[in-house]
């Protein structure tokens, strides 16, 4: 994946200075193993973290791993660090792993996950009243296909993502049928197909992701999420049903093997201090997925532009 020997001059100079200072203190020269998944944001995030750890003198290794299956490796110490566990999709697995005592939650990455029903902007003309969710009731027929008519068709994520869309549709009395995609590739293939034809679609979109940068559109505004709305039927618009509100938004966590802190205490501190924000991440994802830049270049650019930030984390 071409990560080798790729330092810009600035980074190299700074790297030598810090590395020579830090080298002596590195607790273990064993490589810290970071997991890579298959979406660009995570690759960028992970490789920035890896670059910073290298600047601090640590050895770093990247391992390709499945998003949920990686917890098996994090528990045993086969893998050391996962940079993106989304509260919206990975919370259950993370909680289970943390409860086992072998995995620790190292805190927020600073990125905020948003997941919600989303439509392309051209649907606003055909369904006036959007983004308010009430509008969906009136124009469900606009979103219908031959297989779902007279109900509208809502494309939800893989069943493993959860999301309670069937419950939401029932609780809010929306005339929609929920169709689950098997993977997010299939999910966004639906969007691309509909967008090319300017055809009606409403589907589950999450950010940070490249789709909102490529396609113009908006999230539907449901009654805002509260924990009580999910747990207590009497709360919310529908007094008899839970889930009568939008989806929760939440942080993206960093998760590590529990032994990381003992083996590389200073690295643990750096990892804990590391944060990004949604705007810079979205810009980088767009650079990679839409403008065709390589992940390596984007990571190096971030490292050059944000030297103050990461040197402060290392100095902590």
């Amino acid at each position, binding site marked *: 994946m071409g990560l080798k020997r790729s*330092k810009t001059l600035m980074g190299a100079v700074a790297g030598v200075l810090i590395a020579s200072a830090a080298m002596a203190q590195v607790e273990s020269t064993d490589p810290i193993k970071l997991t890579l998944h298959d979406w660009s944001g995570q690759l960028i995030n992970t490789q920035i973290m890896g670059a910073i750890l290298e600047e601090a003198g640590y050895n*770093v290794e990247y391992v390709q791993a499945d998003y949920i*299956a990686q917890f098996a490796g994090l528990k045993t110490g*086969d893998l050391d660090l996962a940079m993106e566990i989304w509260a919206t999709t990975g919370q259950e697995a993370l909680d289970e792993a943390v409860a086992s005592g072998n995995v620790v939650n190292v805190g927020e990455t600073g990125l905020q996950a948003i997941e919600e029903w989303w439509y392309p902007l051209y649907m606003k003309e055909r369904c006036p009243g959007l983004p308010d969710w009430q509008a969906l009731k009136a124009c469900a027929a606009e979103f219908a296909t031959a297989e779902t008519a007279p109900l509208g068709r809502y494309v939800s994520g893989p069943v493993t993502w959860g999301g309670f869309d069937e419950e939401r549709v029932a609780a809010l009395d929306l005339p929609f049928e929920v169709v689950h995609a098997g993977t997010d590739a299939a999910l966004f293939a639906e969007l691309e197909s509909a967008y090319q034809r300017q055809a009606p679609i409403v589907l589950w979109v999450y950010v940070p992701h490249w789709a909102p940068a490529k396609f113009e559109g908006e999230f539907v505004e449901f009654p805002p999420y509260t924990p009580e709305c999910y747990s207590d039927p009497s709360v919310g618009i529908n007094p008899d049903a839970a889930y009568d509100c939008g989806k929760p938004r939440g942080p993206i966590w960093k998760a590590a093997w529990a032994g990381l802190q003992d083996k590389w205490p200073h690295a643990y501190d750096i990892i804990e201090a590391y944060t990004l924000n949604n705007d810079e991440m979205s810009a980088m994802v767009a650079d990679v997925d839409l403008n065709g830049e390589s992940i390596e270049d984007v990571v190096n650019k971030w490292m050059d532009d944000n030297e103050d930030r990461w040197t402060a984390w290392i100095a902590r």
Partner: protein
Amino acid sequence: MSARLGIWLGLFGLTLGLSLTSLGPDWLRVYPDAWVLPLKDSISGAMKWLVEQANFGLFTFTQATRGLAWLIEQPYNLVRNLLESGFMDGVGRRAEQIVPPVSWLAVIAAVVALGHYAKDWILALVVGLAFTYLAVFGQWESAMVTLASVLIAVPIGVGVGLWLGILAYRHRSFELILKPVLDLMQTIPIFAYLVPILFMFGFGPVSALVATVIYAMPPMVRITIMALHGVDPEVVDFGTMAGCNRRQMTWRILIPAAQKHLMVGVNQVIMLSLNMVIIASMIGAGGLGFDVLSALRRLQIGKGFEAGIAIVVLAIAIDRLSQAFAERAGRITAKPTGPLWRRYPRSTLVLGVLVITGLLGLVWPVFQTFPERSALTTGSFWNDGIKYLNINFFDTFEAVKLFFLNFFMLPVKRFFLGIPWPWALVMITALGWRFGGWRLALMALVMAALIVVTGLWEKAMITVYLCGASVVIASVIGIPVGVLAGVSARAGSVIGVVIDTLQTLPSFVYLIPVVMLFRIGDFTAMVAIVAYAVVPAVRYAAHGVRHVSGNLIEAGVVCGCTRTQILRHIRLPLALPEILLGLNQTIMLALSMLVITALVGTRDLGQEVYIALVKADVGRGIVAGLAIAFIAIIADRMITAGAKAARIRYGLEETHG
């Protein structure tokens, strides 16, 4: 005969009636949760114990599997360094390359030399062009990673397969145990045992290699057993007379005599290993499979397609090479004499290219790695093509889809889901008895009952419906095409290329475009299954029609049959057993595609396996995987028995042959 047919028609009518009327209480159709055996929890518990507590005294189970993983990893790292990354000092971004990998020109020279050695200049040209394609289209590094995994997985698969085969040949009882295990290895979807493998062998390429070996090995074992039994008894007698001991008998007599057949097994292992690249890349193998996945996640269809085609090209090159080696086996050539370079002209040449390009590469990098900038791409062509189809023909596709859904798929689905499960068990047993006597009846009953009691009945019926519908369509398309390929040589060569491509092109490549054109749903899944499962239907039909005995056709010509009559009355009936075997393989491939179609969003056993993978639930995955395997085994046994009956009817086989 007709009375018997009447009984079966009556039973079918009864089933249809029961399905449509939905008489009786609900539990007849939906197996109640309260009655489900918690088998999956027991399996998960056993796995946990094995990984966390099992101890052999000197070492734990986990230590043993990790030791094995380390052993496999060493040669893998060596080959990968040699082909792709070069030898490094240090790790990660700070690593410095000490020795570069073998240059692209040297690798191409090596495969050209191999091609010439194995067969002739034509083969050398074909494999040379294939590898040049990989370089020119910018797939080189990934292709070398994939090649490295294949180079490690194949010797392990062949070696272990050969060893198991020899053991089974020597000990009849071992063969009896091994046969069902092989059936399961071939029919349980890989996703089902991926999680336990990750637990045992750790994260990374080794687990991917182990999964690949498990999937690719069974044909080697089967072919070894068959080939050893097939060795001419006179050859064996000769060995006995010459006073061979058992070891000498195996390695000096049996294996050389069976070499040609064994090479077919090697070829199968190679092809199946290449089929695994996508799934292996999901758990850390990297390479071309990973490129396909990540490109399609970004909806870069063209890029995914190019990586997919690179897999096809690589597969075809390796396949032709290994086939040539198989044919070469046993050919005796005079040993050349003279100085070293004259005795080994090809090795000398490759070594020369290696050294020269290595040295030149130090100054001009183009000799070391193909320049990225000059790489060709057809990416936008494919993207635009799909877009054009989508914008202009979506409504036509939609109409075709609705026709199939309303008049074919949905009625079939309703039929299968409506059958009360106790009645279905009765019918499966009866069918087993009809085709294969009481043994098959008992086996079918036990397997079907296990599916019921693990609470997977409904998903199993959706599986049967989806695969059944796909197999019907695949046969309707595949058998006529196969017959055409068998009758006409010119059509045959064109169809052959298409079939080879369909077989090795990872299905994920066309899954996403199909979703774009047909949306998420059962029809999309069916299109993907048909595209993959049509291959054996074509292949076996072509093979069957082509290999009808020349004498019989001669007889037909003498009787004054027209070409059509020869086809209808001689070729087709005689090819029937072969076509039935093709149908059998079509069913197997359709079932193996289920896990892939779960990525579209189906609600069958494939989805169950996929959910288990995502949730890292060992027991759930294995139980669902076994359910798929049971369906496959029941179908396989019934069709095999049916094909045998057909062979006996047409006098191609003795009653007790």
